[in-house]
């Protein structure tokens, strides 16, 4: 049992924190508010690539740093802390990691070095209407064709589909679930812009008889569900890590604000009602952090982590919700003033709360596992 960070892990944290501190500012984030500009910072992305961070969890033979999922999750936490306009989760976690884990040598050679160098982007299409389980696609179907597949259906809320070289798409076949690497520019693919709460570029991806060649099949029907489950658990844990960064920053911003803001001649932080609500946030964030680190650590070690990921996501949802409202409230009007930086954090707490299943949904799923005898306390 070790809750400390290794030297390498601290280096990744510090390097990431330094870059985001230098290059992310409220002024820059403002540029993409209300979709005025694309929420993507080319210069920042280039800097992350240059520092090697985009390849932090990729093997050295693919131009990566050769670290693991823990180090990647620590990078994601820093993305959250700064709410940097950098699609690290869709690209590095949902996209590159499954390719590295399950892809063919040719796929890895073709896609991964570009990811590490920041020249190529991947993403994953995880949502369908009323279906947020990527391992069990309902509205996307595929049939075998020319050694590959022909796929049809509609995915929702696909981040950065417009920039992606390939997006991972799961589809139902007569023999089981498959996972494909779909080119968003291929014939039959239509990208329809969506407008969402965070102003992240997201797309409705309509697929109509899209041909996917054999070389772009990530997993056939024998393995597709397993690949998508693996992808989902890693992405969920990454969302939790992002939430750790976002909530921690919002909480500390709130603590600082209440220490400065005076009413009745004293800092409002000196009122017990204020201090105690902030203390509740501290406890909440610590619970989220530890559950997240546990889930990440187990995934990094290749252990079964289904219960731990679900529990971390329950905390990510609850803590995001509670810290968001406590922060807004304790800031008084400043918390919702768009000239003050807090409000953007609130949209990301909401994003992380809802994506890949809310607390209620994960509680229900965990409850089923408990009933089946799969989630006893060890």
């Amino acid at each position, binding site marked *: *049992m070790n*809750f*400390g960070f290794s030297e390498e892990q601290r280096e990744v944290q510090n390097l990431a924190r330094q870059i985001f501190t230098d290059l992310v500012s409220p002024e820059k984030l403002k540029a993409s508010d209300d979709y005025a500009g694309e929420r993507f910072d080319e210069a920042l992305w280039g800097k992350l690539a240059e520092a090697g961070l985009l390849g932090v969890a990729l093997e050295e033979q693919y131009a990566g740093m050769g670290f693991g999922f823990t180090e990647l999750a620590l990078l994601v936490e820093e993305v959250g802390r700064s709410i940097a306009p950098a699609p690290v989760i869709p690209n590095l976690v949902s996209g590159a990691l499954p390719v590295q884990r399950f892809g063919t040598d040719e796929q890895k050679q073709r896609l991964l070095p570009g990811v590490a160098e920041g020249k190529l982007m991947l993403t994953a299409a995880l949502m369908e209407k009323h279906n947020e389980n990527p391992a069990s696609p309902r509205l996307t179907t595929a049939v075998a064709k020319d050694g590959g597949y022909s796929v049809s259906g509609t995915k929702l809320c696909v981040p950065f589909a417009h920039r992606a070289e390939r997006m991972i798409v799961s589809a139902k076949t007569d023999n089981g679930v498959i996972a494909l690497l779909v080119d968003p520019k291929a014939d039959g693919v239509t990208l329809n812009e969506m407008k969402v709460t965070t102003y992240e570029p997201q797309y409705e991806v309509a697929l109509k008889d899209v041909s996917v060649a054999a070389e772009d099949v990530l997993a056939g029907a024998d393995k597709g569900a397993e690949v998508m489950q693996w992808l989902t658990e890693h992405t969920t844990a990454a969302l939790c890590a992002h939430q750790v960064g976002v909530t921690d920053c919002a909480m500390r911003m709130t603590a600082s604000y209440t*220490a400065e803001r005076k009413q009745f001649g004293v800092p409002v*932080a000196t009122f017990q009602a204020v*201090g105690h609500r*902030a203390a509740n946030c501290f406890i909440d964030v610590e619970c989220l952090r530890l559950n997240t680190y546990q889930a990440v650590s187990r995934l990094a070690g290749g252990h079964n982590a289904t219960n731990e990921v679900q529990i971390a996501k329950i905390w990510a949802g609850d803590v995001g919700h509670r810290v968001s409202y406590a922060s807004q409230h304790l800031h008084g009007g400043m918390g919702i003033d768009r000239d003050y930086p807090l409000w953007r954090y609130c949209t990301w707490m909401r994003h992380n709360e809802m994506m890949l299943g809310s607390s209620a949904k994960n*509680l229900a799923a965990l*409850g089923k596992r408990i009933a089946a005898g799969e989630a006893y*306390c060890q």
Partner: protein
Amino acid sequence: MKVEFTPEQEALRTELRAYFKELMTPELTAECNRDMGEGGGPLWREALLKMGKDGWIGVGWPKELGGKGLSPIEQFIFVEEIMRAGYPFPFLTTESVGPQLAEHGNAWQKANIVPKILSGECLIAIGYSEPGAGTDLARLKTTAVKEGDEWVINGQKMWTSLAHFCDYVWLACRTDQNAEKPHKGISMFLVPTSDPGWSSTPVVTLGGVRTNATYYDNIRVNDDALVGELNKGWKLITGQLNRERLSLVNCGPTQQLFNGVVKWAQETELPEGGKLIDQPWVQMNLAKVRAGVEALKLVCYKQAWAMTEGNLEMADASAAKVYGSEFFIEVYRALGEVMEQMSLVSEHSPQAQEHAARVERLYRTASIITFGGGTNEIQRDIISAAGLWMPRAAR
């Protein structure tokens, strides 16, 4: 970062689980239940002596003091397993006061008290609160006055739990009436309950658990009884409370109760057909407890790890205490709901059901640690000040 047990820690857990399974005979279990889960009975004492003999007290203490020299995290595993087994372990003595004595005690205490704690022969109660000094503990009035070579102790303490079967009270006394600040005039003493000047009266609580008011009438002790330096008792008190806080919120018993209720709900048939555990609301309650207890486990492990590394943060210790104490109450409510009206049927009733009867009692005892061991308001003050650097109002 590796949030999982090492093979050695897993082996220790397996060994302890087997050991306690054998230790907890049905007779001992019955006696512990009768004693409201606080121990003190003859079989309980016998088992404590056996644990001492087998070297299972003070697993985290230094080897030169007779302990096993294992890290706080291994010690925590020990406490978790023993609490899971349902043995009311005297952790105030062994985990909280004991290590303080081993570190700061004088030669007499190290020679006479510390070995007896390790052998299970010596039990110590905590004497801090007084009728007029609770959260504002520094106002305590019990005095120790030097007369020749002796200290003469007079006063009254409240909530001196377990004192009616303990050998000593770890007693906070005022030794300097003129100190510039009240907490700078306090010293710690080990006072024998066998002294004719010592007496106690029971205070029975909502949960049925007995605590005590204790009285100190011209008790005379020499310098052997003084712990640490004169007028430096406050640091020992806060150090002890920091250690106590972690023992208070051990996750072992809750994990055990949760597992028991899950198994029970899986087997329990509903008159209308199907099993209780198939009900969505039952699954929801169980999932909330499961997610909460996982956090408690990790909060506890992180602290045990931090103690091992020597960097336990004040805010983290307080966060664990607040979270655990308030979570327990929600656990008993949620699991009680699952067992419905049976969770109001006491163990003394022939219709009693094991887990439900336990919840019947636990629900009545749960408030104790939200204010005991340093009230949660003060803990939250510590968290906002030490964890978030927020300024505090003057008191």
